[in-house]
């Protein structure tokens, strides 16, 4: 048994989740594949969105996967880092916008 919660080699085994729930697993992977096809957004744009979200949800597997995916698509490191910042900005914004709630509460409680 691995002595860490995350093992990089587990990413290769992702497909195995289907073995314990075939229908749901297959539906998920079919959906997943479809999402990342060329559409109104290019597959390249979606790869950068996925990379940003991977950071926001702090999924080490997804970060590995979409860094590699970006490299395969010829996406530059500058583009990748900007995508990470876009995710980080939304995440920090989501924290800071709660500051308004804090201000509202403060004002309500104060004379």
């Amino acid at each position, binding site marked *: 048994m691995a002595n860490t919660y995350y093992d990089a080699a587990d990413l290769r085994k992702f497909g195995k989740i289907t073995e314990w729930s075939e229908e749901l697993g297959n539906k998920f992977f079919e959906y997943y594949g479809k999402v990342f096809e060329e559409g109104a957004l290019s*597959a390249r744009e979606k790869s950068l969105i996925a990379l940003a979200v991977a950071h926001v949800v702090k999924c080490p597997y997804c970060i590995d996967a979409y860094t*590699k995916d970006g*490299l*395969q698509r*010829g996406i*530059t*490191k500058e583009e990748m880092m900007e995508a990470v910042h876009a995710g980080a900005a939304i995440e920090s914004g989501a924290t800071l916008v709660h500051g308004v709630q804090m201000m509202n509460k403060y004002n309500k409680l104060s004379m």
Partner: protein
Amino acid sequence: MATKSLKARQKDLAKTNKQLEILNGGIFAEGELPYFKDKLANIGNFPLRPKKMEILQINVGYMCNQVCEHCHVDAGPDRKEIMTRETMEQCLDVIRNTGAHTLDLTGGAPEMNPNFRWFVEEAAKAGIQDFIVRSNLTIIRANKKYYDLPKFFKKHNVHVVSSMPHYTRGKTDKQRGDGVFDKSIRALQELNAVGYGMPGQDLRLDLVYNPSGAYLPGDQAALEKDFKKALDEDFGIQFHNLFAITNLPISRFLDYLIASENYEDYMYALVEAYNSEAVENVMCTNTISVSWDGWLYDCDFNQMLGLKVASKIKHIKDYNEDILNDRNIIISQHCYGCTAGAGSSCQGTVI
């Protein structure tokens, strides 16, 4: 970045038997990943057999002005294996009589062979439909004696196929060495200036892209679009097609994969991307590769692994296309590189 070949550094992996030991052992011997021959057997394609011979690829020597990190030839300035005029004469006899429609000269930097120009002049007279020279671009700017290469290529209607790892300086120089990007751009502009790569023109200029690291090439058409846009907007450069080529796990790329602890992941990625449709068109089924010393191989990769053709005809001096075509192609686990995704060959994807 190394400035010498694995051979000059006396690295273990310069030996072909060491490379084959790795490719046949480890995760494959332990049964974690299937052998390539089993994949072929599953689709009734083992042993793999040639189809019509279409491409004669001649490696005129391993000497090169660059020492690229991913080079499957382990080429470099220190390599002294150079095709002699005598072997070139033997090749010319074959070129004049072959049924192949494509002649493909490669290296090393083929232009560094002292008899290169004579050989091109003679070979061009044979009137082969598509006459390719694989040029690394920087050679054109490496020394004054090479400055006129674009004109020389044009004179003999040579189809130029050139390596260009990326349209940004950083990625190109990391894979191929400092200054390679600027020299390559200059060389491409000079090729354009004599008419190469222009839309609708016959002087063909294609680029080869291979990943600068332990990952597979993305979609060839999408990469071509990105390259065309960036090279045109930034430098006014035109070219015809982009060939996306997968790095095969041999020689310096194998050394890199092992040193960077990417070998297993890379092999998993290749096996996972295995595409049985690509098997139909792998280049070893329509190509013969000739080494600097005249030996015959199923492909340039087998040449670098020292795996000569399994035929009683093994040398260019004895060349016989009919006998050669009746052979089993030699395979190992590096072959997964040519069947991944949309497939990979010296002409890019195969499906």
